[in-house]
């Protein structure tokens, strides 16, 4: 059974991570997932939770995951924007949970967008 004592332990672990975040003063990387009717129907929920899992697994302190509504390109959902500090926004389309570890490792951690998953690559097809 999950207990409140476990939650208390999670709180402490999180606090030390938050302190690290403020100490290093580095800027936040933002991950924005489309979660309107179209995104949800296309499979955005497992994608968002995969990002959560990956961030937790790698203990990435500077990544903020958030949700947005429908931006009008429903046919490309699930869509995910990754915005590295000081860099241009990169939009990934038709994102599946299996693609998330690669996006996190190559783009968020190492700063190289995964070209083949981006909207640019999808629109060329």
């Amino acid at each position: 059974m999950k207990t409140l004592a476990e939650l208390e332990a999670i709180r402490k672990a999180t606090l030390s991570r938050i302190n690290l975040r403020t100490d290093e003063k580095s800027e936040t990387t933002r991950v924005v997932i489309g979660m309107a009717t179209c995104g949800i129907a296309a499979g955005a929920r497992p994608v968002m939770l995969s990002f959560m899992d990956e961030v937790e697994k790698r203990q990435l302190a500077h990544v903020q995951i958030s949700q947005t509504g429908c931006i009008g390109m429903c046919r490309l959902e699930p869509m995910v924007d990754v915005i590295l500090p000081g860099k241009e926004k990169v939009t990934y389309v038709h994102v599946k949970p299996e693609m998330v570890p690669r996006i996190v490792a190559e783009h968020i951690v190492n700063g190289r967008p995964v070209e083949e998953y981006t909207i640019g690559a999808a629109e060329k097809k």
Partner: protein
Amino acid sequence: MKEIALHLLDIVQNSVRAGASHVDIRFLLGTDGVLEMGVRDDGCGMSADLLARVRSPFTTTRTTRKVGLGIPLLMQNAMQTGGHVEIESEEGKGTDIAAFFDTSSIDCLPLGDLASTMASIIMGSPDKPEFAIRCASPNGEMSFSTEQIRPVLEGVSLAEPGVIQWIRESLAEEIEPILGGILK
């Protein structure tokens, strides 16, 4: 939508956008096999005029496009099991929407991953509103609310990945014995 739980994820956004401070979610499975999915909020509510039009796919409050499919898709999936959707609303007081599904119908969607849906909902709006969920069936009953765990967290955001993971796992454990028969 492939799961009833995905409809919840979608429909709850209406309560959040209505500026609710409390959103109460209920999943009640009766002995007759009828599942009620209900969402009650204390948001801005709807005028009689909007309430009369809200079931139409051409009704939306956003200004960028003229369609809104959340409620129509929910109605379609409830009605194809022989069920229906009830909406009550009062301006300034809030809204209650309830969808009824006959889970014995071959056309009924599985309930799906309700724990992941709750985790996604809370992640999307970690500060406000407070979310509560109650599940009941002939097998038992459970409830959970964000208000209940906030004091334990002492200011740590509910959206922190570790916290979200805890919420997802503890809800999955608690929901399984109650609604396990219709999850998949």
